[in-house]
């Protein structure tokens, strides 16, 4: 009952993280169905319709069930401890925000057993195709509404906590980067989640109440859905990466034993990326037939995002420069992030060039691109963050050898998995096809092998984390990382159930900008 009723940010943070990991596992199994079917040409295991259901559910579960709750879990655990307050501002809302999730995903997963199967129209839910969904349709819409409510409550909680409850002396420009990136992410969430809710509600009324927002025969416009969806969807992809930027900006200075380079420009770059994310949505839609002026605008604005993103990467490297680096597991994941995310950024820049995008669009090149920014990007950052803070959470050190093995195993196989997909896309393999022409065989075989190997490796992580949660391991000191700064390291490990009931005195050594 403690876990159901709890309003403690640490308990809820743990719940979020455990939930996210469960969803990663479910979504991962779905991706194995996909990669299993694509192992060789011809249809071996699943019906094409079921294949489409798997691609759709894999995406929805990974985005809304995996990455977002994992980041929320980290925010729950760390934001109050980093700004020096006792809990999030709205603890009961926090409890609700979490407990909505199992219902939302229970509803979504139950569609697998319904007449007509789960949604099969891709996570983008483009009409008119999505209107052909069977009995799963209303469950899809309502589960998205619930996920949206959960995200918004989490975001409001983070904003209010950060703006109102910082310890005296913790000015905005002294906050850790993780707090900054989450603050900006929370604003993005509050701005765009209602847009998604609106779009799917319009789908719902189109299907059941005779409206024709998106039905051409009734005077509607199927492309309007795409505009609304991507007005949500593009900021959403930054929701999935900004907190990762914050994590990496926390880990690299610690293990380089050097202050983050260009703290202020990091903050401004994050804000610039957030702003640009609102005006580039139609680059997902270059092929829908926009006017030339529109295509030019979206091409130029999209290319601009490379500038603040580049600044971030340069700053991370400048932080490492002339540092004194050691390579514990969190640092390995952070460095893996910088390297592989940059590759994903490069393919993103290529995709921004509209004439070339006409060729790349809806091919495996795009699949490779967004998996490079989401798996070695968002997921590696989450894993790095967990290794970084788990001594604080459990009071014991994780097994360093297993952690290092987990990193190298993941880093190798994730490239085997996704790098060949660049070639597949360039050679002309469309996305979301359950079967392919025989010239695409070789790279698909390699990619599938990578997928299975990557998945298996994650059990090493589960084992390591379970050991920590059981308290098996070397006891962790309050500040287990020599170069770590921040209020969270001033409390004992494991962190007491209630921290900072009295606001701490903020020492200049413990703030991000001038540690």
């Amino acid at each position, binding site marked *: 009952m403690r876990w159901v009723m709890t309003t403690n940010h640490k308990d809820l943070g743990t719940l979020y993280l455990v939930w996210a990991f469960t969803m990663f596992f479910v979504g991962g199994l779905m991706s194995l169905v996909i990669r299993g079917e694509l192992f060789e*040409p*011809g*249809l071996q295991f699943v*019906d*094409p*319709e079921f294949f*489409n259901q798997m691609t759709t559910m894999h995406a929805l579960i990974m985005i809304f069930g995996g990455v977002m709750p994992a980041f929320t879990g980290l925010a729950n655990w760390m934001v109050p401890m980093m700004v020096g307050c006792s809990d999030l501002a709205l603890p009961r809302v926090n409890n609700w925000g979490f407990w909505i999730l199992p219902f939302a995903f229970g509803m979504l997963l139950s569609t697998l057993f319904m*007449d007509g199967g789960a949604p*099969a129209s891709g996570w983008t839910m*483009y009409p*008119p*195709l999505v*209107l*052909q969904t069977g009995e799963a349709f209303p469950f899809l819409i309502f589960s998205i509404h619930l996920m949206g409510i959960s995200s918004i409550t989490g975001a409001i909680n983070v904003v209010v906590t950060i703006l109102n409850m910082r310890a005296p002396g913790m000015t905005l420009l002294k906050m850790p980067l993780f707090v900054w990136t989450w603050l900006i992410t929370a604003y993005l969430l509050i701005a765009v989640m209602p847009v998604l809710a609106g779009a799917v509600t319009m789908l719902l009324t189109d299907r059941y109440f005779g409206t024709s927002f998106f039905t*051409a*025969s009734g005077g509607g416009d199927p492309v309007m859905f795409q505009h609304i969806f991507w007005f949500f969807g593009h900021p959403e992809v930054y929701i999935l990466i900004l907190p990762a930027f914050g994590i990496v900006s926390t880990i690299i200075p610690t293990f380089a*034993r*050097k*202050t983050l380079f*260009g703290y202020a*420009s990091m903050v401004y770059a994050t804000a610039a990326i957030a702003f640009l994310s609102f005006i580039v949505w139609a680059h997902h839609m270059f*092929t*829908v*037939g926009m006017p030339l002026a529109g*295509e*030019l605008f979206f*091409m130029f604005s999209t*290319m601009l995002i490379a500038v603040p993103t*580049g600044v971030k990467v*340069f*700053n991370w490297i400048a932080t*490492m*420069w002339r*540092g*004194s*680096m*050691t390579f514990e597991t969190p640092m390995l994941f952070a460095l893996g992030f*910088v*390297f592989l995310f940059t*590759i994903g950024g*490069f393919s993103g*820049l*290529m995709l921004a060039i*509209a*004439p*070339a995008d*006409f*060729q790349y*669009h*809806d091919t495996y090149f795009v699949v490779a691109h967004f998996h490079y920014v989401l798996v070695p990007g968002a997921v590696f950052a989450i894993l790095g963050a967990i290794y970084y803070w788990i001594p604080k959470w459990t009071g014991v050190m994780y097994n360093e050898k297993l952690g290092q093995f987990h990193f190298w195993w993941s880093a190798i196989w994730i490239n085997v998995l996704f790098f060949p997909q660049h070639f597949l896309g360039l*050679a*002309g393999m*469309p*996305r*979301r*096809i359950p*079967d*392919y*022409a*025989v010239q695409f065989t070789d790279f698909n075989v390699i990619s599938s092998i990578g997928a299975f190997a990557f998945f298996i490796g994650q059990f090493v992580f589960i084992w390591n984390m379970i050991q920590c949660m059981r308290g098996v391991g070397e006891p962790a000191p309050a500040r287990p990382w020599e170069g770590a700064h921040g209020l969270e390291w001033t409390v004992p490990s494991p962190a007491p159930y209630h921290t900072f009931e009295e606001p701490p005195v903020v020492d200049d050594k413990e703030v991000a900008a001038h540690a």
Partner: protein
Amino acid sequence: MTALTVQAEAEVAKWNMPVGVTEISREVHGLHMLIFWVVVAIGVGVFAAFFYSIWAHRRSRNPKPATFHESTTVEIVWTVLPFVILIAMAIPATGTLIKIEDSSDAEMSIKVTGYQWMWGYEYVGEDYSFYSRLDRDSDRARQVGSGIDPSSVDNYLLEVDNRLVVPTDTKIRFLLTSNDVIHAWWVPALGMKRDAIPGFINEMWARIDEPGVYRGQCAELCGRDHGFMPVVVEAVPPAEFEAWLAGKRGDEGSDTAASEPVQVAEADTGTATATDATEVAAADADADADADAEAEAPADDAASAELELAALMETGEKVYKTNCVACHQASGKGMPPAFPSLIGSAVVTGDPTTQIEQVLNGKNAMPPFGHLSDEQIAAVVTYTRNSWDNDSGVVQPADVAALRQ
């Protein structure tokens, strides 16, 4: 010509974007390579600093970290420099984009319509149109557990029953639309793809330089058979194209209504297909025609014979699952009001003529299925009339043939 075709197909670029056979596709390829090398150059610089730092600034080699954490000059440089690089890339990209969007002065227009799951092609103003679907060999091999090795099928999943034949050295405007959901028409060698959206007409254009066969696929998730709607464009010299088109129109204009020439592919006898082959000068068409003629023959025999309920139900279920299930659902309940239930519906239980005509010609949101064979239509009609508690008798292929216009 055969040699060229083979060459074009053999040069399947495995590692990179194909160069293509239009001016636009060459420009796009050039842009792709330009930005690729720019990215590689930046990557080499950034990763060199990254790995050098990891090597030289590890603790065992550099125990005392530096203390700098700011440099306005450096930060300005690495903000401004990318700007300049981006502008340098944006200029050629803008030029190409303007060319791509300029479809004026087209010499001919082809209307491309996406269906779940095939393409309809209409030569605008030429009074000729047809449907183009996955070819039989690929279709057989792709069934779950077919036991057929895909590599034994020529151009597995990239071959159609009726290719889109176009002239070379001609500015062709493609008008794209759709009849049901959003599809995307894509032939990599033409350097372009564009969505086919219901209620919209989108435009793209191409001027193909070299005769040959160019293959692509639908690129927008369009439902169950999204992976199985290839696009095959056969470019021939203009004179040959004129002869081909004249032949096509001459044949069908006289004995069938021009609006439904597609019947030739499915319903007419093998001779019609053989005639096609002589007129399409492409050498490889002969082999296809033989195969087609063989494939047509049994279907034709079947059409003349009376079929048993069981046989019709079995075929009908397959046809239903491929064509009807998305809207009317496996349960037959449909999704009212958009897609009516078939259980006990007046159309399905009443006079079969109404239902056959509706399947052939479509009604409201329901597309026409005239491209299906008589046997397939008879089977699916029989299937719906005898499933889910319906019990309304058998329809024979002959009944369907009688109603075709």
